[in-house]
């Protein structure tokens, strides 16, 4: 009699881990197909204008090349995301630097850089805009018209759909205002974007490559090629990091490679190098948030007005969805009697921004958690006490009027986090030591939540499907379009199936996402894989188990061998067996897109993050010296993977707060090199202490909620709160670099990072170079 060992909640070896440590994992640039050519992209060098001529330098033997322009597109010249404003290839106008205009292919990769440089394009330049403020002014309209001039999307979110009564403002003891800004951030996956495409007039397009959402690319290809989905095959190769940067962008690079394959008659590999990837692909949306808050003298939030604006770049891409998540997270984990959020996504002549872990929430949560510390200071309460008087609790309603029926105990989480990090003692210690030290130390925290899954009715629209089949050898194999890119998709889905099927983890297989073989289980985004897809895997596994049990080849308490035998017998008798499960919307989730109210997410993860910092007054550099991350996440499916997710997210968020600055000049990213875009190394990160609490959610597999994006939300405000404690200076913009601290601390004008001169790349190259 077999007893099911606990697999969920343990840390079995990463499913594809052995290949990775052996160096055998096949990333797209490791793959060579017979007769394969290589592709390159000719891009705009100006931020906005009309193309007046394209000349091909006769020094290049152009007859050896395949050249693709928009005229070669069989279907629509569009990369579809939500709108169709994004051209696949520019025709007459360009709206951002690096906008793709032509594509080249050649059998020899080495000749492509010179060829790209030999395409001479002349433009008539038009005025370009680069900031939210310039876009709002509407002096130059670069997108849309009339109501939508320069505006990709707006939202109005008002609690109970009623404006805030004037009396609230008039009678409030305090009105606290603040403005907070966040900069762009590059995902900086260590594997650049890349694909290999093939084209066959009969069978259609095949694209394999580095990506998060194979079916997004299928959809994009159907429009570009005017082909049905069955003739657009997409295969995800081992992907070296994504973080959102390979959510929508593969639709661009995949379509490009496929066009080259079509015209050249060869498979075409199109892989970017670092400089091109950084300059031309999506980044995190910059943001500006304005808070106006009415507060009672007891520190109760009475009403809040939040203006939340993000910079979407030149085309809409995913801006409406980023805006949505940022809007819903803007009020945070607090009880607001009244709240109005006005949100907008604006257009600028910068390469379009896109998805990056957190997806709008890190932006609005940064603003909120900085603002809460400001409110505390204004009212005369500690940051902790202000939170305690306003945190949501079980049975409360959120800003969208969602009833929190699942248990939530932020008071407890706050107590535990502050105790684990020794917050109060450290605060006193630093207050005592700072006056006589050149190193100013501080400690600060952030309280926040993150909704798992697509917003509101999004999951219903996705209508995800999961299948589990029996292989000819009688093993269960999971079929999903959910992709692995380091976060552990393969591992946790196999754990869930193993646990449900009462089989060892090693017995479970998971297929490489190939859209001809796997169903559409939705994109691998939005912290939905463990919760939504995991639940479907659990149900499909249950269905498979039930089928075999019902077939009478198998009885309860079977062993692994029993299962294998029964499976083989079933296959011999009945043929292939594939169990499936389709998303079922929980009956009590209602979301109204019109009023922006209701159940925004089926579940939330809740967290308190505490950051300890040191600000060196000799160099004005702030470093994080210790970090405590406490979160309630439903069920920890795999402790090592989950911890790794939190640690990795915190590292990225530390970069977001203190190191990673995108330096734009006239719409060009001037620091598109790893030398000049500063990501934390192993020497820059503090010890990170991760603790989980578990309050199982009814929605996710084995109670799991999502965790992928959560760790991106809390660190930046916690760090800046700590820096304010250390220096008594309120910094409200990230990234916060030493030059910015220097400027404020010494009151020296024109010395902060606004005064960097990106035109001077400085001493990277030698005398022998340009």
């Amino acid at each position, binding site marked *: 009699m077999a007893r099911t060992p606990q697999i969920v909640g343990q840390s079995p070896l990463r499913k594809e881990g052995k290949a990775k440590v052996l160096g055998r994992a096949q990333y797209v640039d490791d793959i060579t197909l017979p007769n394969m050519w290589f592709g390159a992209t000719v891009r705009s060098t100006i931020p906005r204008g009309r193309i007046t001529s394209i000349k091909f330098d006769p020094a290049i033997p152009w007859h050896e090349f395949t050249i693709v322009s928009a005229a070669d597109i069989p279907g629509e010249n569009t990369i579809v995301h939500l709108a169709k404003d994004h051209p696949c290839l520019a025709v007459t106008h360009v709206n951002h630097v690096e906008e793709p205009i032509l594509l080249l292919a050649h059998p020899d990769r080495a000749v492509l850089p010179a060829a790209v440089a030999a395409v001479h394009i002349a433009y008539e330049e038009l005025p370009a805009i680069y900031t939210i403020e310039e876009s709002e002014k509407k002096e130059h309209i670069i997108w849309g018209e009339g109501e939508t001039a320069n505006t990709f999307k707006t939202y109005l979110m008002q609690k109970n759909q009623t404006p805030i009564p004037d009396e609230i403002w008039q009678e409030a003891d305090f009105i606290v205002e603040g403005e907070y800004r966040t900069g762009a951030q590059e995902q900086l996956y260590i594997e650049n974007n890349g694909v290999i495409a093939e084209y066959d007039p009969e069978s259609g397009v095949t694209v394999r490559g580095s990506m998060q959402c194979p079916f997004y690319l299928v959809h994009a290809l159907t429009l570009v090629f005017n082909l049905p989905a069955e003739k657009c095959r997409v295969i995800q190769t081992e992907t*070296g990091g994504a973080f959102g940067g390979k959510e929508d962008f593969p639709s661009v690079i995949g379509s490009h490679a496929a066009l080259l394959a079509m015209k050249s008659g060869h498979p075409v590999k199109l892989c970017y190098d670092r400089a091109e990837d950084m300059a031309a692909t999506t980044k995190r949306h910059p943001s500006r948030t304005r808070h106006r808050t009415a507060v009672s003298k007891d520190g109760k939030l009475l009403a809040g007005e939040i203006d939340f604006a993000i910079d979407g770049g030149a085309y809409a891409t995913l801006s409406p969805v980023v805006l949505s998540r940022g809007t819903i997270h803007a009020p945070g984990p607090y009880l607001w009697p009244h709240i109005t959020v006005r949100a907008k996504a604006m257009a600028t002549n910068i390469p379009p921004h896109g998805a990056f872990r957190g997806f709008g929430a890190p932006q609005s949560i940064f603003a909120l958690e900085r603002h809460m510390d400001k409110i505390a200071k204004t009212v005369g309460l500690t940051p902790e006490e202000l939170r305690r008087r306003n945190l949501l609790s079980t049975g409360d309603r959120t800003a969208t009027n969602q009833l929190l029926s699942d248990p939530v105990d932020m008071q407890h989480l706050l107590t535990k986090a502050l105790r684990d990090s020794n917050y109060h003692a450290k605060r006193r210690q630093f207050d005592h030591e700072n006056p006589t030290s050149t190193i100013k130390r501080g400690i600060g925290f952030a309280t926040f939540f993150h909704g798992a899954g697509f917003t509101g009715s999004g999951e219903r629209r996705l209508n995800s499907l999961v299948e589990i089949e029996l292989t000819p050898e009688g093993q269960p194999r999971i079929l999903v379009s959910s992709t692995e890119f380091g976060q552990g998709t393969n591992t946790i889905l196999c754990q869930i199936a193993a646990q449900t099927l009462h089989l060892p983890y090693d017995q479970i297989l998971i297929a490489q996402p190939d859209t001809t073989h796997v169903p559409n289980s939705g994109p691998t985004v939005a912290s939905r894989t463990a919760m939504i897809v995991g639940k479907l895997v659990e149900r499909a596994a249950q269905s498979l188990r039930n089928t075999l049990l019902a077939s009478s080849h198998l009885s309860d308490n079977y062993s692994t061998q029993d299962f294998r035998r029964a499976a083989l017998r079933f296959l011999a008798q009945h043929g292939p067996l594939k169990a499936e499960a389709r998303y079922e919307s929980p009956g009590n989730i209602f979301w109204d897109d019109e009023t922006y109210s209701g159940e925004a997410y089926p579940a939330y993860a809740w967290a308190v993050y505490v950051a300890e910092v040191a600000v060196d007054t000799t160099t004005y550099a702030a470093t994080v010296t210790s970090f405590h991350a406490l979160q309630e996440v439903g069920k920890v499916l795999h402790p090592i993977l989950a911890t790794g997710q939190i640690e*990795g997210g915190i590292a990225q968020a530390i970069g977001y707060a203190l190191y990673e600055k995108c330096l734009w000049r006239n719409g060009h990213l001037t620091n598109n090199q790893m030398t000049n875009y500063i990501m934390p*190394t192993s020497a820059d990160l503090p010890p990170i202490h991760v603790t989980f609490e578990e309050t199982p959610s009814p929605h996710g597999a084995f109670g799991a909620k999502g965790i992928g994006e959560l760790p991106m939300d809390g660190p930046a405000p916690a760090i800046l709160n700590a820096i304010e404690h250390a220096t008594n200076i309120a910094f409200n913009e990230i990234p916060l670099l030493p030059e910015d601290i220097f400027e404020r601390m010494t009151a020296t004008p024109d010395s902060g990072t606004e005064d960097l001169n990106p035109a001077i790349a400085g001493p990277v190259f030698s005398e022998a170079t340009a």
Partner: protein
Amino acid sequence: MKRLLDVLREDLQLTGAKEGCGEGECGACAVLMNGDLVNSCLIPALQVEGARITTIEGLAIDEKLHPIQQCFLEEGGAQCGICTPGMILATHHLLEKHTQPTLLQIQEGLNGNLCRCTGYMRIFEAVQQASLVGTAK
């Protein structure tokens, strides 16, 4: 002229070394040259003449994982895996020099290998485990 990285990947089909940046910053292309950790994207192939090169493919003996590889696997030191070959070779290089490295020595030894996924904590665990297993050989 060819870069050592291209010779490895294209001429010898040893694709374990990866090109992450082409400027010697990320360490994904790292290999051992006469036992020294180097970034192969910055090395003209001709300068390698007479040298002994060890790539990730040279670490495991037959199908048996090197202890460092095993520790990375067990401690969650590899997430997306693209930095992993270089990171493992850097670890090997470190443990040859310091068999029981302190955390500071680990941080320094790996400071040329960028990982965007892990935040380095699990990697440090893996290195410390590997040093306990005694992996100088």
